[in-house]
């Protein structure tokens, strides 16, 4: 807990300071200037950027799970030719730096009219979120017993009912992990968002970098705290919910 909390001490100090000059160890004067700026002076900008970030991350997470679920199922349950090759191909976007992928795709995105668009940013985030999501769901379905579905069918569940009432509840912890993972990956993206978004799609990291560059440390610290909230939420959620239930709903 201390290890997790320690890096946030300077952030908190900065966010609640008015003046803090070298070589003092603590701020010379305290104040809420940063927070007043955040909620009074520029609340609209902060809100728009936060929402933008949320939408991008949420859309990315939803699509990543929607793709990861059937793909992970296929990889985890069925045996087919080229499965090993597929796993290597899936690994590639994780291994290759996302900067290279973004640079490479930028030209194509410009041609296709996807550059500087919401969809373009989501797509570029998906290039690495989908593999992660597929890997998580692959693991989940490797321990999944398909007989549960046979049992459901035999008891009178239609194909759709089987998916909704059996498969999804059985794999829910995995789905949540894949979703949160993708959400956080997308939420923390800077470079790929900057390249494809071209400054039109402004997310929290983009704003944060701008604030850092402007030298207003207290405001940057306050935005950082806002930025880190989802990660904290995820941490608590996974500790409380997943820690108890485990990753696999099958025994």
């Amino acid at each position, binding site marked *: 807990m201390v290890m997790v909390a320690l890096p946030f001490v300077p952030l908190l100090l900065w966010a609640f300071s008015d003046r803090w000059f070298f070589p003092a160890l603590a701020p010379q004067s305290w104040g809420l200037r940063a927070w007043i700026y955040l909620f009074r002076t520029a609340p609209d900008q902060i809100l728009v950027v936060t929402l933008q970030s949320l939408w991008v991350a949420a859309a990315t997470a939803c699509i990543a799970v929607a793709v990861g679920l059937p793909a992970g199922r296929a990889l985890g349950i069925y045996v087919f030719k080229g499965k090993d090759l597929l796993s290597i191909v899936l690994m590639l976007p994780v291994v290759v730096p996302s900067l290279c992928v973004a640079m490479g795709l930028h030209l194509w995105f410009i041609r296709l009219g996807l550059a500087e668009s919401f969809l373009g940013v989501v797509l570029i985030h998906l290039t690495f979120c989908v593999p992660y999501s597929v890997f998580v769901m692959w693991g989940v379905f490797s321990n999944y*017993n398909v007989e549960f579905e*046979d*049992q459901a*069918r035999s*008891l009178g569940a239609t194909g759709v009912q089987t998916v909704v009432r059996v498969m999804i509840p*059985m794999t829910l912890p995995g789905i949540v992990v894949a979703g949160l993972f993708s959400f956080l990956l997308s939420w923390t993206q800077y470079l790929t968002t900057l390249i494809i978004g071209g400054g039109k799609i402004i997310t929290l990291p983009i704003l944060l970098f701008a604030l850092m560059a402007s030298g207003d440390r207290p405001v940057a610290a306050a935005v950082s705290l806002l930025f880190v909230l989802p990660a904290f939420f995820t941490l608590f959620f996974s500790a409380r919910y997943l820690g108890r239930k485990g990753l696999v*709903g099958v025994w």
Partner: protein
Amino acid sequence: MGELILDRLILRFGRRTVVEDFSLKVADGELVSILGPSGVGKTSILKAVAGLLQPAGGKILLDGRPLIGTAPEKRPAVMVFQKPLLFPFLNVEQNIAFGLRMRRLADSKIRRDIASIMELTRLTGLGRRRIHELSGGQQQRVSLARALVVKPAVLLLDEPLSNLDADLRQQMRDLIHKIQARTRITTLFVTHDQAEALAISHRVALLLEGRLRQVGSPRELFHRPADPEVARFFGGTNFLEGRFEKGALHTQVGVFPLPGFNGNGHRLTATIRPEDIVIRERGPYDLEGRVVRTRFEGMATRVWVQSGNTLLVVLTPDSRLTPGQRVRMHLPPEKIHVFPPPPDERRA
């Protein structure tokens, strides 16, 4: 109603044929066991009836209506698997209600049906329990209740007792027997355990190497096996080969009168069950031999006796026999079962 007819069913996995030409008629209200060693395709037959496996050929008829092509959820046949497969995210009651919920029945009816089925399967009071709080036997009972509550025309039981220990097995077997007798639900029961099949079924169908070998009442299969392999499956080990002449079977070890059997000159194979051979010290006897090995099995002792070049296995209540001892055996003629000779080997 629930008369189930399987007609020349063929089941394949890829290119491998697991079940060939399987025909079986199960009358309404009957409990028929499909018995056979592991991996002969017994489960596949149930899956085909449940609609979870597409047969490569043949017909499945329920009350005269063909089932093949009907989706599993629309078939009035419910399968209970070897593992209880209870949904871990639902409690006992919700698990039992699953099939009724899928049919979108009214809550009041669901509650009534669940209460009565829980009473029948002796689960009353466990409704709110989580699945992991149940014992193995309780889980299997929930699984059975979940299948029975939808009132299927045919119940398909796939070795539901094999994961239970001996004591629970016995209780569960009795429970299934009782429930089947009370509900008169047509039941196909798959097992590899001959004792289980004999104890529970109206009729037994023996499946060996993907082929149906014999169908009949438990007594028929046990005492009048159709061929040596069937006999072997039921623990038969003593086979006598010889020629039938003048009302008796002439074998290498001796001559055994077979009253009521016709067909002079036939080469025949006969069998006698280990527990039917009588070891006696006095009185007439048919064979003499030397004890080679003994194994104490509690209720009885299994004794291997060498007589000429034939090794006979005898199950006797006498536990004092020791290897090397000479014994006299009586083979009651009425206990000797002669296999019908295959058509092409009638006259050797």
